[in-house]
């Protein structure tokens, strides 16, 4: 390749590279540096303390340890419950939409995607009104039908059901759009061939659809997992971590450590441990799915 053409390609990449470096790479590296310091938000001196922030997080019995691991367990529960639903509900919706007549398809696609455009606080206001135990829409509806009200946000497992329901309603549009595009990529001839071979709807789905969209599935799975690990707004606004502290997720604790306790060093260490964990989980997911593909 000629150097001018190389230069041109480099120039095209440059804006992204600059933004990536400035807004992602540099903050992350700086976060690593901070996590190695006794970084008290209000003091001007930040002594280098090596790994002691990490050590106190990983030492059982410390405040940081309980903050981190209690939060992590709660977040992990959310990931376990939400990721499968975020994938399969999105896929089901996408298939449902694709089965609709083309005229109304666009309309429904917009409807399902619409909540995705809302901010977290709007989402929370809507769901607080819907779910209110004593004055909410859903419980009034249940009462009309002769059922007892459900403590949607103040009792487990209902608090989890509500948080996951709200999350699906809020974010499912994105995964759905990805799946719609993936489904449209499946060659029509393969379905025809399968039909000629006498395949039913289910075996067509398993043998034709799923293998073709597997790479997209992997993408959706990994992005959904990452997003679910970063759960914050839903419990912060809907349950305030309650009942008790059963939905007090990790990021609530990390932000508390940074801004209520003003210990940014320790909070950064928590954030970095969390990032490493997310990376590890993503790699495992990638490896597992890839192995299947080779087999």
């Amino acid at each position, binding site marked *: 390749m000629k150097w001018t053409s190389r230069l041109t390609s480099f120039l095209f990449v440059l804006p992204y590279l600059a933004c990536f470096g400035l807004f*992602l790479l*540099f*903050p*992350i590296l*700086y*976060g690593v540096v*901070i996590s190695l310091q006794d970084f*008290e*938000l*209000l*003091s*001007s001196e930040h002594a280098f303390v090596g790994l002691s922030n990490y050590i106190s997080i990983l030492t059982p019995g*410390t*405040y940081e340890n*309980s903050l981190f691991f209690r939060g992590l367990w709660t977040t992990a529960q959310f990931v376990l419950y939400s990721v499968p639903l975020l994938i399969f509900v999105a896929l089901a919706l996408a298939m449902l939409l694709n089965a609709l007549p083309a005229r109304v398809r666009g309309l429904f696609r917009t409807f399902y995607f619409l909540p*995705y455009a809302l901010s977290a606080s709007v989402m929370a206001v809507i769901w*607080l*009104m819907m*779910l*209110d*135990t*004593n*004055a909410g829409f859903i419980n009034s509806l249940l009462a009309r039908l002769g059922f007892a*009200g459900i*403590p*949607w*946000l*103040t*009792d487990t497992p209902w608090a989890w059901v509500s948080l996951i329901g709200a999350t699906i309603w809020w*974010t499912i549009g*994105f995964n759905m759009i990805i799946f719609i595009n993936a489904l449209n990529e499946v060659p029509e001839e393969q379905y025809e061939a399968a039909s000629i071979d006498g395949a039913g709807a289910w075996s067509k789905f398993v043998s034709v659809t799923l293998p073709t969209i597997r790479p997209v599935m992997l993408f959706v799975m990994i*992005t959904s997992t*990452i*997003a679910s*690990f*970063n759960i*914050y707004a839903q419990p912060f606004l*809907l349950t*305030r971590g*309650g*009942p*008790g*502290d059963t939905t*007090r997720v990790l990021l609530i604790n*990390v*932000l*508390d*450590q*940074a*801004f*209520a*306790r*003003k210990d*940014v060093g320790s*909070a*950064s260490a928590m*954030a*970095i441990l*969390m*990032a490493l964990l997310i990376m590890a989980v993503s790699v495992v997911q990638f490896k597992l799915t890839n192995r299947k593909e080779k087999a």
Partner: protein
Amino acid sequence: MSKRNRKKASILAMTLMVPLLATACSGNGNGNGNGSGSAAENQSSGGGSGKATEILFWSPFSGSDGPFMKKIVDQYNSSQDAYKVKFVIQPNGEYYKQLDVALSTGKERPDLMIMHVDSVPTYQSKDQLQPVDDLASQAGINAADFAEAPIKYATIDSKLYTIPLDIHPAVMYYNKDLFEQAGISAPPTNRAEFDAAVEKLTNKDKGVYGYVVPTLWPQQFIFPSLVWQNGGELWNGSDVAYNSPEAVEMVQWLRDMVEKGISPGNVQQDGENTLFLQGKNAIQFNGPWMKSQFDEAGLNYGVAVMPQIGKAKKAVYAGSHGFVVPKAVTDADKLAAIGDFLKFVSGDSLAWAESGQAVASNKVLESPEFKALEFQSTVAGSFADVQFAPNVLNWGTIVEPLWGELSNAILGKKPAQQAMDDAVAKSRQAMK
């Protein structure tokens, strides 16, 4: 990139990035070191001289209260030529984050700022604030001219660190229509009256409750008031004390409201307020800031000081806004400007009272204009009994487990004593 990915990046990187903002953004010198586009700056209308000493004044009044403070600043700026106050509103939820960043980097640092009185000891202990005694005496401001509680709280080593602006205690809101229907002529003032009133007010057929017990916010204002009233403490001087018999009794009292059917169970965040707005909750304890919401809803409500539920003494939890000066401000002209402005405000804070706040300046409190403000003067009625959060470093994170455990007890998930014991155990972990 997807929204969720970006959200992930932004939330994840938030803790990582704030220190970055501290160094990077405040270094850009564009006159808006907070990096948030929503800071509103007041352009003085009468600043012609160009020689005026300018002071930068930060406040968290991003709600409906902002315009009232702006009005005071505007009046001050047009009242004289020597000084000019540049008024900046930071978003309420972000205020202390922005402040920490500005103070720790020293760039675009305010010369004068609003601070909640219970934050003053923390910032003082971090060596961020300067005493205001000299500045006040030069400007002719007297500590005795203000409500006593915030002055006492913010006097550290016999030096005063704040000039109080207002005090916002928990107050009792009640639905006048429901009171009338139940035949109650005056708001309750003690436990016997309160218990009798809520029982009369509760009407199962109509779905009306006497007192809907919140399980989360604003328990941060209610529960400490109850504990103090009952002779208990949240902090006994060396340790958290909310598992004392006095405190546990109050937890049980709250839970009993639910057991007796005076409050519904499973009240979610803001659930008591929703029912209050619907006319199905007769009483709630909340802060003075709720006034504008009730006014807008067209509710026929009354306000009274919080009744004395506990058996020991009158007490009510409060917050308080005051003016503080960063330690780094040393310029004599600026300090004189700050003093002059504060003198003006404490004489003229009636405009602030109009925002719904009960002000801390005695001169204003005693003025006929203030006494004519029914709501604000009722709120000021409990000034003699107000108490602030315990003066303990990191109190916010130490007390945090209490709120979760208190909600467990009110929801009936744990017996009162066990919930408070658990809260104490968790809080002790946060103390070190």
